[in-house]
């Protein structure tokens, strides 16, 4: 329900912003705020980047809203939320996640002889990111930011059932992003590398830590993309994942995406995501769509 409200809020924000055109979300160049990754931080689709959400430059604010939907073979995932960027320095974000697991119920019943405690799992994610040094475009060295994502699972029955230790966790990450303007054959090239310290199982939808491992580990995440024009970015991402649950192996995530920024107030991203095995169901991949409004 909340998801629908958020999707509507995002659309309203985007539609409001278009005719008003009073504020474009700041002075920075179009597409340089990226989009919102699943946990609500500015980045690609699954990886947070060093960029600050929106287009705020020094002294400027930017407010953003997003909604994401991913249809996997056996699950549906939705995320929605908002973020505030200030001064190209600080970013605050909130996201709500929901994973529909109703197709898992018969599998669990057949395999374990017990009913699944719930047909969905949800969680909240709160993020803070600070740009430490450099500018994405104009400096020789990459823009570097540090961030925190605090996540709390609000339907812990299922995660507990699969062996998760905690219902909440905090990820720390360090991201380095750089855009080479002349890139390859005159097409700007973006590269991002993120190191994340985490014990989240499937973003935390399956809780934090597990019977195999409780501790946080460093994971590598990478995104690369080309600007085909001022408003179209195509690229690919990779996110290494821990595997803490004995009965539910977790695999690395990857995606290929195309994002369109028709204005500074709106963007839409389509992607094909391959999330591997999720809660015993293997080879989960599917179509990802995300919209974003910026003021």
């Amino acid at each position, binding site marked *: 329900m909340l998801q629908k409200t958020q999707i509507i809020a995002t659309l309203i924000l985007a539609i409001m912003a278009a005719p008003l055109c009073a504020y474009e979300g*700041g*002075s*920075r*160049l*179009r597409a340089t705020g990226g989009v919102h990754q699943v946990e609500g931080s500015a980045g690609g689709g699954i990886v947070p980047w060093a960029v600050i959400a929106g287009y705020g*430059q*020094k*002294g*400027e604010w930017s407010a953003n809203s997003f909604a994401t939907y991913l249809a996997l073979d056996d699950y549906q995932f939705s995320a929605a939320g908002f973020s505030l960027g200030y001064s*190209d320095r600080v970013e605050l974000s909130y996201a709500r996640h929901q994973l529909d697991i109703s197709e898992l119920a018969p599998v669990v019943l057949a395999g374990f002889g017990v009913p699944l405690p719930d047909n969905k799992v949800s969680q909240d994610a709160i993020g803070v990111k600070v740009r430490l040094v450099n*500018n994405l*475009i*104009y*400096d*020789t060295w990459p823009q570097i930011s540090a961030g925190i994502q605090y996540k709390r699972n609000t339907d812990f029955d299922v995660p507990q059932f699969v062996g998760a230790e905690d219902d909440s966790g905090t990820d720390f990450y360090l991201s380095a992003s750089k855009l*080479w*303007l*002349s*890139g390859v*054959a*005159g*097409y*700007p090239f973006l590269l991002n590398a993120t190191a994340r310290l985490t014990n989240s199982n499937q973003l935390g939808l399956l809780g934090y830590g597990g019977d195999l491992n409780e501790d946080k580990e460093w994971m590598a995440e990478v995104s690369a993309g080309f600007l085909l*024009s*001022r408003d179209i970015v195509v690229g690919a991402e990779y996110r290494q994942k821990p595997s803490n649950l004995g009965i539910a192996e977790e695999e690395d995530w990857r995606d290929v995406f195309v994002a369109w920024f028709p204005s500074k107030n709106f963007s839409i991203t389509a992607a094909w995501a391959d999330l591997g095995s999720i809660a015993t169901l293997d080879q989960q991949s599917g179509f990802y769509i995300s919209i974003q409004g910026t003021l």
Partner: protein
Amino acid sequence: MKNLILTFALTSLLSACASTQQSQKDRLFQELGGHIGIDELVVTSIQFLHSDERIAFLFEDIDEPNLVTQLNEQLCSISGGPCQYEGLSMLDAHAGMDLSKAEFDIFVEVFIEAMRARNIPFSTQNELLALLAPMRVDIIHQ
């Protein structure tokens, strides 16, 4: 006679090399439309800057003919054209103006609009921007 032919062949070869190098060196200048193209770009940019309310005030009391000359020289020189930029350094040219990061970004945005208006290809735009980007450090907060 043999020596003469050899000398001639070598000279031709070398001058061929030199001329390829020359055409390589001014490729971006040619893609921008040479002197005429660059002048049109400069004039369009200044027009657009004047009509952008976020940044127009910075160009109100400016010596415009001088700005046109300087920008022409600079873009010609940086793109490998047959010019030498003899104006002030970027640091000296912006001294005391205390330009903000936001003003710089808006300038780039308007400059991109001008390049689009002049139908400069996307890849050429980016090659030029990449050459201008390192100047930012000398332009802002001076």
